[in-house]
């Protein structure tokens, strides 16, 4: 098995690049897209209640399927080990914790923890809503940046 400890994305050899690209693309679809799916569609002047509801839908029901819904923390828990060397990705292990975008995702998800707890307990004030929106946005943008960089580092990018 190929193991890539704390390395930069540009150093992943071509043979394992596709596995990494597929993995982060899934992360983008499952978390990056849905962590602020409904919030992104709100008008700029949306009231607090509407924003709170959108945030709750995005963070508490990030993934929906026939078996019910899963929150953002649970979705991230599936992917985090693959980016920190904890689990295999396409027969490889990638430890990208030093990568600035991966670091930003970890940090953003950490910030979302109390927001999700607050939303579960219906104890979310305007400050926490704003904090949740900011953290969700930073997670989504960091994932997007990560995918773009992985793609750019690949053989197809020329």
């Amino acid at each position, binding site marked *: 098995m190929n193991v890539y400890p704390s390395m930069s994305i540009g150093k992943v050899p071509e043979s394992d690049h*596709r596995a990494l*690209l*597929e993995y982060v*693309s*899934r992360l*983008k*679809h499952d978390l*990056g*897209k849905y962590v*602020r*799916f*409904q919030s*992104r*569609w709100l008008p700029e002047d949306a009231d607090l209640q509407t924003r709170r509801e959108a945030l709750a839908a995005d963070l508490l029901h990030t993934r*929906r*399927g*026939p078996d019910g819904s899963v929150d953002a923390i649970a979705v991230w828990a599936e992917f985090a080990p693959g980016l920190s060397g904890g689990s295999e990705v396409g027969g490889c292990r990638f430890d990208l914790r030093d990568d600035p975008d991966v670091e930003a995702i970890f940090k953003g998800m950490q910030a979302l923890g109390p927001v999700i707890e607050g939303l579960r307990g219906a104890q979310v004030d305007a400050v926490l809503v704003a904090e949740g929106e900011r953290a969700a946005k930073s997670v*989504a943008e960091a994932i*997007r940046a990560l995918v773009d960089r992985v*793609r750019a580092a690949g053989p*197809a990018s020329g």
Partner: protein
Amino acid sequence: MADILIVDDQDRYLELCRAAIPEHRYRGPARNLTEALDLLSRARGRVDCVLLDVHFDIPVSELLGFKEGASPAEVEALKRRQGLLILQELRTRHPDLPVIVMTSREEVVLEREVDGSEEFTYFLDDDYVDARALQGQLASIVSLRRSTQADGPVFWGRSLAMRRIRQRLSVVARGRLPVVLLGPTGTGKSLIARHFVHARSGRSGRFIAVDLSTVPPDLMAAHLFGSVKGAYTGSVGDRTGAFEAAHQGTLFLDEVGNLGMAAQKLLLSVLQEGRITRLGDLKERAVDVKLVVATNEDLAQRVRAGSFRADLYMRLNPATAVVLPALSDRSLDTVELLRFCLERALERPYLRELLGEYRRAAGLEGTRVRVVAGASAPKSVPGVLVLLFPERTMRLLRQHHWPGNLREFAMTAENAVLFAVAEMTAAEGGDRSDVIVVRAKLIKDLLGALPDQAASQEDAGAGIRVVLRPHETLNKVSVDCERQYFVALYLQTGGDFGAMAEALLGDRAHARKIQLRFNQLGLKVRELKERL
């Protein structure tokens, strides 16, 4: 308002679209291909655009491409590209339906199902789409579709030749320069002049059509330019000519080759000065007319022969002449033309009455008629009478040479319905009284009554060149011919493998077979695309 079908395993897009883009009507969500096709069928062509998600977390029994024994990882991969498989299936049945795949092109670039060249497939600019971006994309796609549909079925077609003609006519319809329509008789020149050129000319005046082959030569000038009382023997009053009647509108002169030399001189003068003088009058009148002329003659040859004025010929703007193809060169458009002709025919009172009588005798209610071509009979729908043209019938219609072109085709289609209704009435008590089948044999009989000019038409299409060389195998000659045929068809269809499959195998769904054979013949799509 547009009609949008959402194909998604969740309600999220539907909820968001309804809340944030409320100006459209939304159908669905369809959770899988079967539901999508069902909703499209029920919508009867009213859907303007499809929003298609890519990841479908649905039971394996509903998954397209699922094979028994697939590993969990394979099933997961299938779910993650399920939308692309649905897209492929949608394309075989709805080749020109706009579909927005709800992801960016970059995200699916590794998937083998994606054909980036699909004309009516759109991707998001950004995976993280918001309401404003989607609203803008929907508006532009729907507007494009509406403008294409407004072209009308006669001019609509998948063939590259017809698309180019449409583009060219759209340009020349505007402005004051005359338009010349060339092409064999019966190809729809007058329809195009009236419904396309005039409609797009931006003019407020009337559309006036004059068939010069029916106007006596000595009355031609008076007919076109008008006359005053006593201008000629039998002129008992002032008369407004076609030019004046078409002021600020469009004048269509069919069979312009019949224009006498004297009238040609007068026409030249009108084109140069923008003024007419009625026969016998001294007063000049300003006329602002968009002139469209049509002929199936070679006007340049007439100029060389001295029977058509060279200066008038040049004034008619021959450089931008539009040549309409013979119907035998438009076999890809047969289904659309059939629907168009039957829609027009069904407006005629006698045919409506005949169908009304049939309905009453068969105990059927309603007034709607649906034309189904190249397929089996659809499910029975209360109030709907189906005119069914099975694939064998369609093949005959596609393969016939149609020397009388659209006119002959329309007549045959109308006759086919008349006789098919008569057959059904005489047969009494078939399986489905709501389905009137136009059988291949009936078409054969109808076409058999017409002269077959196939032999004289042989040189009309693209030819295949065979060079005889000693010691060459028959197989090589055959492959060489096939290669030329494929290239010609590829260019004619604008690179649409589905359309090629329809032309060769009678079914668009066999596009992959055609593509495979294309590759086997060593043909390179990239090189051919440059020739499109």
